[in-house]
């Protein structure tokens, strides 16, 4: 599974993308976030205020209950500010 990071999420993590193998116990987006936080304290910093971090699964915004078992690409980023 590929993870991509943008804007200040990328800055805190110090990387823009990575490929990860997730444990079988991770089923939903919320599970993934909890697992990432348990693995790396930088993710705890990113998700300190979860309302400020959006997640797109295969290019579609999803909420924490979304099942990610077949996801190919998950992106984490702050609310958008283009235009």
């Amino acid at each position, binding site marked *: 599974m590929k993870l*991509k990071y*943008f*804007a200040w999420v990328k800055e805190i993590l110090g990387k823009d993308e990575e490929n990860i193998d997730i444990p079988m116990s991770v089923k939903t987006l919320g599970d993934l976030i909890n697992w990432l936080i348990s693995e790396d304290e930088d993710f705890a910093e990113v998700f300190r205020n979860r309302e400020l971090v959006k997640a*797109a699964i295969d290019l579609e915004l999803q909420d924490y209950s979304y099942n990610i078992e077949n996801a190919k690409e998950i992106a984490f*980023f702050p609310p*958008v*500010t*283009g*235009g």
Partner: protein
Amino acid sequence: MIKIQKEDFNISNELNSIDILSDNIGSVVSFIGKVRPEDNLISMTLECYETMAVKEIEKIINEAKDRWDIITATVIHRYGKLYPGDNIVLIITASEHRSQSIEANKFIIDYLKTEVPIWKNEEYSDHNDWVKTKKSDLLSKEKW
């Protein structure tokens, strides 16, 4: 037509390309978003999740076409390091009658600002800031 690009756009060329698309165009509306010169702002760097941005802009244009009778819509959004006065985004809508292209153009920029994964980082002489979502932008979108 949708383009996400680093380089500036040529507005005349884009407007000319709209004109040849249909004999029925009676109104062409263009909106250009620029880097607003503000005190001490040195530059603005735009970061983009390009594949998702294209998909989101497609959705917005399709929604605009459902709501208004527009013949075509163009969105060009830049990324990379820009300076005060530089162009950021170009939106062109065309229709037979003006109200359709005017409303559709406003709709597209209001949605683009809150839905398309692009982020601005402002560089000042002593610090950098990621731009936060403005409440006024969210309200502008909600009114549609």
